[in-house]
């Protein structure tokens, strides 16, 4: 079977889990990934100030909660990025790294001084009764040819 004839078949197999779904919502709570990014003035900067990407709001009003029932696109996009992180950490594939890069570049406000950008994934988990945080993946520095919007 040629590569081109395999592609539609592969696409159709993606529908199979829809016909025979596995309903295992919140079966267990594992390490939780977060994305952080850092602006760099030079690619070789050794000091990195990491910031959370899309930090959640401190508090949501009842009106905001009600509005989010009908309209919550950024939150759903952030959940997709969590799933990209999990898949990337499970087995590295450039596709998932690019998915994260695409969104980080598209949604960050510009930083006039910065010439480069990098992101990392940290994992938060419970160790006995204590929460631990450790970096699980650091993306290579990306030089910004054009400032993100």
């Amino acid at each position, binding site marked *: 079977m040629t590569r081109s004839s395999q592609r539609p078949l*592969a*696409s*159709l197999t*993606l*529908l199979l*889990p*829809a*016909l025979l*779904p*596995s*309903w*295992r*919502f*919140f*079966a*267990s*709570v594992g390490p*939780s*990934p*977060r994305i952080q990014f850092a602006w760099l003035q030079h690619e070789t900067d050794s000091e990195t100030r990491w910031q959370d990407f899309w930090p*959640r*709001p*401190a*508090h*949501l009003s009842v009106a905001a*909660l009600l509005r*989010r*029932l*009908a*309209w*919550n*696109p*950024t*939150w*759903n*996009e*952030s*959940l*997709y990025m*969590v*799933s990209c992180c999990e898949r990337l950490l499970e087995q590295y594939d450039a*596709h998932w790294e690019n998915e994260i890069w*695409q969104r980080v570049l*598209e*949604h960050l406000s510009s930083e006039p001084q910065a010439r480069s950008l990098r992101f990392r994934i940290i994992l*938060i*988990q*419970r160790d006995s009764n204590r*929460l631990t945080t450790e970096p699980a993946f650091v993306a290579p520095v990306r030089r910004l040819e054009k400032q993100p919007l």
Partner: protein
Amino acid sequence: MTFLWARQATELLLGLALLQHSLEHCAVASRERPLFIARAVLALLLAASVTTTWFSPRWIELALLLVSVLILTRFRGPYNGGADRMGYLILLCLCLSRWLPEPRWQEAALGYLAVQLTLSYAASGWVKIVNADWRSGVALTDVFRFSAYPASESLRGWSHWPRLLLTMSWLLMLFEILFPLAVLNTYTLYAALAVAIALHLVNAFLFGLNRFLWIWIAAYPSILWLQQRLIAN
């Protein structure tokens, strides 16, 4: 509830749910916008097909299935996990019920959706109840304490209420695992679906899982019809 009524209600609710999903995508995903604009238009046509004979739902559903395969290929699987999976399942079942030649096969397709809806609650309850962390309330505490789901930082404070979360864990597990029994009687089924909607609402408020609410409701007409078809009559 007749089969035709249940199928049309499912088509209307699926059309509206997919329209909501697609518009959200259009707002954030610039590269995939053409795909989601196409899906939004088809979803609108599907919802409108309930009130007019201008559009044929069977062709709209086939086109939606094609766009869905393209979206699945683009994201290498479902974008929004369980909510997308339920959407694809409903669409596949509707498509089969519109294209299969024999009325009993058409009914079987919608009946399969009802069975999967029941399983979606029962299986979720089972995987939780066999997990010691869920039985002790630790799992739900962890969800609030450090998972990616709480919609605001203030909601993390719920992790300081372990007894409340233990009670919530057991209420959730018992409801999910006992859901199939509710199908045995029309009134208990209505009550169980009302509780299920309340649960999805809580999930949407606390964890921002709004898409689950709309897409699960879209599958409810199938279980209401199947219950009447097999048990009430």
